[in-house]
């Protein structure tokens, strides 16, 4: 049993931490206020290999393991949660499935430039009337000869406003339920593909999301990722990895809030002494630190299992469920430690609290994670 980072994983953490402290933290408040996509920061992430962390170097990635990816996600999100999710979507939800299911040609055209971070990817499963229940999907792709014609609407698509290519899920055979969906790589430039203006969100405001409209979009067969009818399989396996990314994001947000709470508590005085002298504050900090550690270990375990190529659906779901709910508790306590200052934008903890909320919703709500975990418990 060895529950520590390797030397290489530690270096990744150090590198990402320095980058977050110098490039992300100083700007995150402004990006949040202005709803501004951090294009420069994303370019620098790309230079560091962080847009394709676990993709092999010959395919444009950094060739690192998934534990390193989890560590990087924590550190980047500690600096800016919006930047974290931009990175997570490109890595987990876009590059990863193409690496796993793509043909050689698809890897060359649709993976290499994205893993390098020269271009940005997105993942479109959710629709206005179907989220977690993919069987209710309305978007359809009808096969005509060697082509598919795609029609439908996807919403809440992170990276949607900026994406060069979107991985879109659509029904190809309604009669076959889950087994009747397929995945398609849809370039932003194709005719009939339009986007709404960006959503106005509670948090993670440095990342953009929007609604995507597909109207008689014609796609050659070679743009289909995986076999026809394999869409659900592609989506589910992808989300197992995506949950590692979001667990890392939640962990990073919580860590940032916790560090700021400790720093504030050491400085702030009340009743003649620093508030760290009061058990009410000490114990809140102790609980925050403990829950953060527990989330970190659940996350590392899921990522380690992914690296070993073993099934990790339940473990990823536990990491995501625990980390995201922990994140909401910890960021809320960080506000409490700050008192009134926690409620104003002069400090960052109000942003962390707003950022935390989405982690319990996207890439499978907490309820979906519990479904996955319960199924595993009851099967065992």
């Amino acid at each position, binding site marked *: 049993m060895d529950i520590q980072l390797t030397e290489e994983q530690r270096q990744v953490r150090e590198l990402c931490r320095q980058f977050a402290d110098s490039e992300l933290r100083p700007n995150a408040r402004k990006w949040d206020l202005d709803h501004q996509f951090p294009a420069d920061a994303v370019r620098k992430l790309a230079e560091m290999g962080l847009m394709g962390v676990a993709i092999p170097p010959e395919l444009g990635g950094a060739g690192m393991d998934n534990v390193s990816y989890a560590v990087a996600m924590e550190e980047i999100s500690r600096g800016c949660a919006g930047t974290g999710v931009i990175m997570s979507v490109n890595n987990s939800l876009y590059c990863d499935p193409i690496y796993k299911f793509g043909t050689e040609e698809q890897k060359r055209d649709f993976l290499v430039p994205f893993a390098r971070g020269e271009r940005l990817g997105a993942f479109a499963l959710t629709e206005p009337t179907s989220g977690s229940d993919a069987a209710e999907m309305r978007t359809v792709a009808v096969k005509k000869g060697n082509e598919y014609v795609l029609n439908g609407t996807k919403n809440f698509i992170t990276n949607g406003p900026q994406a060069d290519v979107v991985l879109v899920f659509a029904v190809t055979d309604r009669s076959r339920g889950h087994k009747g969906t397929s995945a398609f790589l849809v370039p932003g430039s194709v005719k009939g593909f339009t986007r709404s203006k960006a959503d106005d969100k509670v948090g993670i405001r440095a990342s953009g999301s929007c609604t995507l409209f597909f109207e008689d979009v014609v796609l050659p067969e070679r743009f289909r990722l995986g076999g026809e009818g394999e869409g659900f399989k592609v989506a589910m396996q992808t989300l197992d990895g995506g949950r590692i990314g979001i667990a890392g994001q939640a962990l990073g947000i919580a860590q940032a809030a916790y560090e700021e709470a400790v720093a504030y508590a050491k400085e702030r005085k009340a009743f003649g002494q620093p508030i760290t002298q009061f058990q009410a504050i000490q114990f809140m900090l102790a609980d925050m630190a403990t829950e953060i550690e527990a989330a970190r270990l659940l996350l590392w*375990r899921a990522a380690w299992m992914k690296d070993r190529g073993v099934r990790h659906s339940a473990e990823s779901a536990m990491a995501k469920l625990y980390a995201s709910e922990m994140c909401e508790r910890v960021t809320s306590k960080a506000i409490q430690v700050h008192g009134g200052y926690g409620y104003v934008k002069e400090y960052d903890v109000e942003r962390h609290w707003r950022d935390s909320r989405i982690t319990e919703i996207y890439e499978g709500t907490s309820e979906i994670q519990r479904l996955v975990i319960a199924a595993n418990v*009851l099967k065992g």
Partner: protein
Amino acid sequence: MDFDGTEVQQAVAASARKFAVERAEPAAAEADRRARFPEELVRELGQLGLLAVNVPSAFGGSEAGAVAYALAVMEVARADCSLAVTMAVTNMVGETIVRFGTEEQKARCLPRLASGEWLAGSFGLSEPQAGSDPNSMSTRADLRDGRWVLNGTKQWITSGDRAGVLIVWARTDVEAGNRGITAFLVEGGTPGLVVGRHEEKMGIRSSSTVSLTFEDCAVPASAVLGEVGHGLRVALAALDGGRIGIASQATGTIRAALDASTRYARERRAFGKPIAEFQAIAFALADMRTAHDAARLMTLRAAALKEAGRPFGQEAAMAKLIASEAAQAATSKAVQIHGGYGYIDEFPVERLFRDARVQTIYEGTSEIQRLVIARHILSRGD
């Protein structure tokens, strides 16, 4: 990074699991009901090497390390929390003697503790008026004619009436405060060591808890464990390791609650289907499983750090805090899932609920764990 454990760790866990399922589990409910100390099972633990998991083989121990120890306690606790705490305290006493004992002390005590020849080791720190704050200890030891003479009362002593050897803390210098406390090895049956009342406990009932009175109880100078005046250091080191033991016990308790609830939820039907098919129940199982895994990982991480010879005090406190608190929630939820059956002794969950309650109290209350954690995080330079 490795979460699977070595072959030795897996083998120790498997052996503890086999014993737990075949021997401990069938006897647990009856032992609890009668508050009966399971002497036979304790001896079997000794034969399996589980009373001295992290003690060198030269002294009769299994020499399997702190992680294997944690895994073994988890498995035994999954079947019987009482037996697990008896086992954990003996292991803690053995490890403390390994760390602070002289060669002579080690040679005398460890093989007897390891084999089960001595049914137990005991840890005598708490007093009626001094628990988490050892500085208010009033038991004293005075040097008379080259022998230390102990006087005072110790409270909540697990296996105190069964122990072949007890580590007892006493004040040897009344003026010196924390630096005036010394640890002694007192053998069971020493004249002047009087076993007092057997506590009637709400849980962990088949473990033995007694008060001990020392009435001019004389021990030789060679009974000092560690150095005179350094007793607190011995206690704190022992408690760091002890917290891994209780965290493991709590983790095993959560697992038992989950096992029982899963079984029941599959069988029990309401509104035409097994209650496992209702999200209200299924999600509770999911939360128990998540809490269990978090507790287990925190506990194993603390144990792995200890085994690697690295600092682990903060991690052990975190593991103990999160595991014991999660055990409260999990066992309460398990009773809820069982409905009325959860409230009677036909099912194991009411016992688990009672057994879990002490876990946030002994070997440092949750409040003490939070103090320890806060001290660590606030003393850091960042």
